[in-house]
């Protein structure tokens, strides 16, 4: 630890920059692709519901837009066959969409 660290306060602009980058990445994903993401979620739910019951909250669809490529992240939490006794297991799938 720097003995004289207390003399200079940490600059705040890098914090602002980092907070904005995280926030806007999220907000762009929500407002930019809301229709597509919502539609995908409904269709995925419909397909899975044919085979076993699933709660809506267990399906997460996220679209991150990037310069070179965007990432579509689909996270489906599947209950184990003995879910009545045990806590639910996790199933995840990640896809990269060019």
């Amino acid at each position: 630890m720097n003995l004289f660290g207390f003399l200079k306060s940490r600059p705040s602009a890098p914090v602002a920059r980092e907070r904005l980058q995280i926030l806007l990445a999220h907000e762009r994903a929500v407002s930019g692709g809301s229709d597509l993401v919502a539609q995908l979620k409904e269709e995925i739910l419909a397909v899975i519901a044919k085979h076993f019951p699933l709660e809506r909250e267990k399906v997460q669809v996220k679209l991150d837009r990037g310069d070179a490529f965007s990432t579509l992240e689909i996270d489906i939490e599947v209950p184990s066959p003995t879910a009545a006794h045990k806590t639910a297991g996790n199933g995840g799938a990640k896809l990269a969409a060019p």
Partner: protein
Amino acid sequence: MAKVLVVTSGKGGVGKTTSTAALGAALAQSGRNVVVIDFDVGLRNLDLLMGTERRVVFDLVNVIQGEARLPQALIRDKRVDTLHMLPASQTKDKDALTPEGVARVIGELKERFDWVICDSPAGIEKGAMLAMYHADAAVVVTNPEVSSVRDSDRIIGMLDSRTARAERGERVEKHLLLTRYHPARALRGDMLKVEDVLEILSIPLLGIIPESEAVLAASNVGTPVTLHAPDSPPGRAYFDAVKRLQGEAVPMAVPEEKRGLMSKLFGRRVA
């Protein structure tokens, strides 16, 4: 070929109206035929910054509702005769603006002027949407501060989706105007740097307007800063921005105060 430019930001108080007045005046000072339109119905202020507040007879809403013809509502600037303004209504509410009415007025203005500059109200409601709808180009006014950058990001998304150009599958030319910038504070790490804002918003930079007392002084007397103090740092920054807007390559810099012989000899005066 007339160009429709919207000056927008999402957030209020970042310098939209100041920038509309300064860019409009600077374009007119370089010989272009310019009209600036106030879209902030109910809270007009462009008239005050242009110094035309006592000459308003008819306004944008009167023209839209057929109570006045366009030439009756246009106010010609007394200092630069190629500069005109169309005021907003102060008494009606924002619902008085109709998409058809705005389209007709913009169409008529495009026949008369080289530049039609729309001063958007803050927010993302009807007035702001109508101000940007017909734009060929947009100046996104942003302060180096988190809430302003976030709102600008939102507005950029809307320029790409909620404009006539976007609906036709074309792009609105977008320009970032960074206002109230403090180079020294940015250098100390106390303020977002130009590069930070550019990286986050990723639209081309039109200009950097430094924080300056010249801006308040110009608004106090109702004269755009490019007319009131053309040699001041913000004045020069707006002139450079206008050159870039017209496609001229001007090196990017933050103009500084020109110091005269006396102040060089005796140091800075006490602010």
